[in-house]
């Protein structure tokens, strides 16, 4: 399925999806609370069948935090990028997709570890790279550690 057909299919599933221009993959932005439903629908859909989450990224935009999902269909061999944002920097929380894509379990733990984004309904949300006693989330733009970090 090419990107134009994919676009139409996505719009029929979620009319509020916003598409980005001039990107490598077809990129859409959706409201953060829709991600679980949306992922479930595009995975179970017979016509697009996005069954493979090949990358899951956390991002700090400065004023807001985001999560980026790279999805692929092993059946039709097309890709899509789904972005969600949350402006809550104190207690950011989005729904987990690890009941849909098992691989998200570790990826979401990593994002929780480094960005502090909580994933609702995650079975085992704890730090994965840093040790348990670590304070703060080091990949955030406002992370300060005067002891270890030499700023430049």
């Amino acid at each position: 399925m090419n990107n134009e057909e994919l676009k139409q299919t996505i719009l029929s599933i979620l009319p509020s999806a916003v598409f980005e221009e001039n990107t490598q993959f077809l990129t859409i932005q959706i409201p953060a609370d829709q991600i679980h439903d949306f992922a479930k629908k595009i995975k179970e859909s017979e016509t697009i069948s996005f069954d493979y989450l090949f990358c899951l990224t956390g991002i700090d935009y400065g004023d807001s935090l985001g999560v980026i999902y790279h999805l692929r269909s092993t059946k039709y061999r097309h890709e899509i990028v789904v972005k969600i944002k949350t402006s809550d920097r104190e207690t950011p929380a989005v729904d987990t997709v690890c009941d849909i894509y098992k691989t998200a379990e570790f990826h979401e733990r990593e994002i929780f570890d480094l960005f502090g984004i909580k994933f609702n309904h995650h079975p085992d949300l704890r730090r994965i790279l840093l040790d348990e006693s670590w304070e703060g989330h080091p990949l955030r733009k406002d992370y300060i550690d005067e002891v270890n970090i030499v700023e430049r």
Partner: protein
Amino acid sequence: MGVKIKSMKDADFKDNETLELFKETDGNIFTTTIDNILNWGRSNSVWPLTFATSCCGIEMMAAGAARHDFARFGIEVYRASPRQADVIVVAGTITNKMAPVLKRLYDQMSEPKYVIAMGSCAISGGPFFYNSYSVIKGVDHLIPVDVYVPGCPPRPESLLYGVMQLQRKIKAESFLKKQFKKNVTTNE
């Protein structure tokens, strides 16, 4: 393909230590001779620990493998156990999480033990010096280092050169004098 070291003559590797030894042992020809024999043995059978944390490890493996083959110089087999190793080549980035493991490995090695800091990460943190929350900025914050081998990563020739510097260092040591001193202090 022979490895040639341009900056140092072959003779220099053998020459100066004799004089140093002579001074150190107050010119006792007997102990210097025995030291010479001991040091000859020790410096030519330095066994490194199988320890590598990143790309420097690949160069270290290349230095040990057939093409560069540092067993020629007596840096023999890699030992998988720190109990059997004489030198630990810190090849790669040491993170805060790796630091306790490295310290334990160093503590488990038996005396006399030596450390080579290989590559810019082990020397100073290298590319991770600035703006990093997780990297130890130089392995000498943790364990004493004998030889620094710069590079990112250093070529096997560089490691060979560093190892030969370590051998020079071992040859300049006075094993007997150390033992004598130890006995004197314990008796007192």
